[in-house]
């Protein structure tokens, strides 16, 4: 029944990812080597997956938000806050499930707050989420009382650095989340509703879509994803750093979604392709590191690649290809 169509997986994003990976391999011949040690895989490729997981998780939530013609600038700050909550709770002696539950609840709450501003008060998403982006890091510092809260709780550390089926735990979490959210939006009508709201919210509302509830849910999911990423990052460094956890990751997450073909004008999105976008960004970062280039070039190369990918995806490029296509058509006639 469910025949896998290879063609569906050949597109700009996967070709770009393959290109970046091959380039990495040219620059660093050991790039594709994967070893099995102590019950898990090791290698640059696994490292790309592992390091890319937090941004991939953020990008899953961000994709839904952008598809409704919104944007969530607060995810980095929410990561810092939820990491701070998880860390302070375990340090205060609460068991890990309570700490994780508290962090996830906070993330959901932050997302819903953004959702209320956007859906009910009708505030522009970029500004509505700017509030929490600015205030959130302050709140995170309030939670940790200005210091880096370190912990050694085995469950939290396992989430950040452990492994399952030979894969690092963050990769497993990101993969499961991606599959669940993709199934949720593509096997039900929710994805269609999201796109409808993104294209024209008032038309969607008139057509009977509960756009307010939908927007609340979408922003809630984004906050929840940010909380998961925050727990992973805190577990990875065994501490909550209110200043630096998730710093600028909101921009990486937005980029990942855009590289993945999600339109910032709303109405078109793909969760798996956003994850591929996150991997492209991480593969570029890793590539610059392993190739021996100075890491300062990282941002410059990133800017170049973004511009290139955006130019390929821009409406202008569409017009040009259409024009060339027409010319070809005329020539054959």
């Amino acid at each position, binding site marked *: 029944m469910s025949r896998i169509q290879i063609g569906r997986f050949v597109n700009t994003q996967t070709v770009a990812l393959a290109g970046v990976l091959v380039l990495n391999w040219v620059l660093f011949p050991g790039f594709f080597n994967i070893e099995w040690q102590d019950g898990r895989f090791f290698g640059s490729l696994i490292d790309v997956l592992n390091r890319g997981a937090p941004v991939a998780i953020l990008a899953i939530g961000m994709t839904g938000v952008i598809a409704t013609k919104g944007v969530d600038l607060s995810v980095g700050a929410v990561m810092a806050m939820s990491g701070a909550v998880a860390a302070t709770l375990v340090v205060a002696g609460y068991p890990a499930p309570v700490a994780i539950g508290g962090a996830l609840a906070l993330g959901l709450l932050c997302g819903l707050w953004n959702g209320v501003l956007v859906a009910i008060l*009708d505030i522009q998403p970029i*500004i509505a989420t700017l509030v929490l982006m600015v*205030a959130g890091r302050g709140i995170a510092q309030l939670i940790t009382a200005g210091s880096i809260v370190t912990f050694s709780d085995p469950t939290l550390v396992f989430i950040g650095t452990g492994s399952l089926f030979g894969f690092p735990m963050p990769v497993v979490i990101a993969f499961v989340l991606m599959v669940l959210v993709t199934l949720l939006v593509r096997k039900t009508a929710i994805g269609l509703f999201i796109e409808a709201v993104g294209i024209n919210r008032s038309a969607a509302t008139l057509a009977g879509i509960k756009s307010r509830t939908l927007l609340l849910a979408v922003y809630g999911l984004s906050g929840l994803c940010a909380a998961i990423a925050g727990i992973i990052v805190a577990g990875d460094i065994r501490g909550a750093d209110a200043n630096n956890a998730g710093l600028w990751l909101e921009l990486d997450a*937005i980029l990942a979604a855009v590289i993945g073909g999600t339109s*910032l004008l709303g109405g078109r999105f793909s969760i798996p392709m956003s994850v591929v976008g996150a991997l492209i960004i991480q593969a570029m970062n890793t590539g610059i590191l392993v190739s021996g280039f100075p890491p300062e070039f990282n941002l410059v190369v990133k800017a170049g690649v*973004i511009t290139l990918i955006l130019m390929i995806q821009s409406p*202008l490029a569409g017009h040009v290809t259409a024009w060339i296509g027409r010319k070809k058509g005329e020539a054959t006639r």
Partner: protein
Amino acid sequence: MSRSLRPLVATIVIFLIAYAAAVMQFPGLLSTRVLGNFLTDNAFLGITAVGMTFVIISGGIDLSVGAVIGFTGVFLAVMISSLGLHPLFAFAIALAVAALFGAAMGLAIHYLQMPSFIVTLAGMFLARGGASVITQDSIPIDHEFYSYISTLYFRLPGGGRLSFVGMLMVATFIVGAILAHRTKFGSYVYALGGNTVSASLMGVPVARTTVQIYMLSSVLACLAGIVFSLYTSAGYPLAAVGVELDAIGAVVIGGTLLTGGYGFVFGTFVGVMLLGLVQTYIIFDGTLSSWWTKIVIGMLLFLFIVLQRLVFAASARGDRSAEKA
């Protein structure tokens, strides 16, 4: 009172109430010394925010300004300290580079039809990355011209000092206000923010205006970078990280609508002063930690956004009842 002035008046009233409340607690806040330092300390933010006001009125956003400030500092430090150029010559080159940079972003936004958000994000990476490629460290700028400028100030009654950079900021706001409210370019900017399609149908040169807006923003960010380098006497690639958000915050608090088409340069000035007031108050208090700044700014942003909505909702109702009558 004109209905369209209401958000601006609301902003001013809130600033005055906040300032009065702060003065009641710390009478020292009223001195011209504090006011003078207010202008000096926020000069680079204010100059950046003027450019941001134009971008936001036109319906766009410029995320690259903080990175341009950082790049300018490093660029000047290398030109002056390593190559031995005169600062004024270095300023001219930096401003020209920034103008080209802004023009490139404006061209990409218009001709590639890409959202300004993403184009200026790429611009931010490019400028920040460019600065880091030049140097990773902080380079001191040691030139007699720099020490000369820092001695330039007006003495205000009461012992306060209005420094050169403070005056530069005030001048930028005045020129910005004239440009926005009294020139053809200004009305084009408002027209673009209202509706790009109808603006172009009405004969607004959309491409040229878009390019000019982002050039203006980058040039002002570069000027802010010059001010920042005068202020710190050094260039550092990570200087002014996050200033774009402070600038956007100041513009929003100043009553400019992010949907474009509405706003005042003077409102942005009040917004910058309000952000400065929060910071100064926290320094005066002494017991509050610096992270309270972020929380208070966040709360202010929220307050003003809700206020704007209420005011606009009220005027929309007013319009309707006026039509009925």
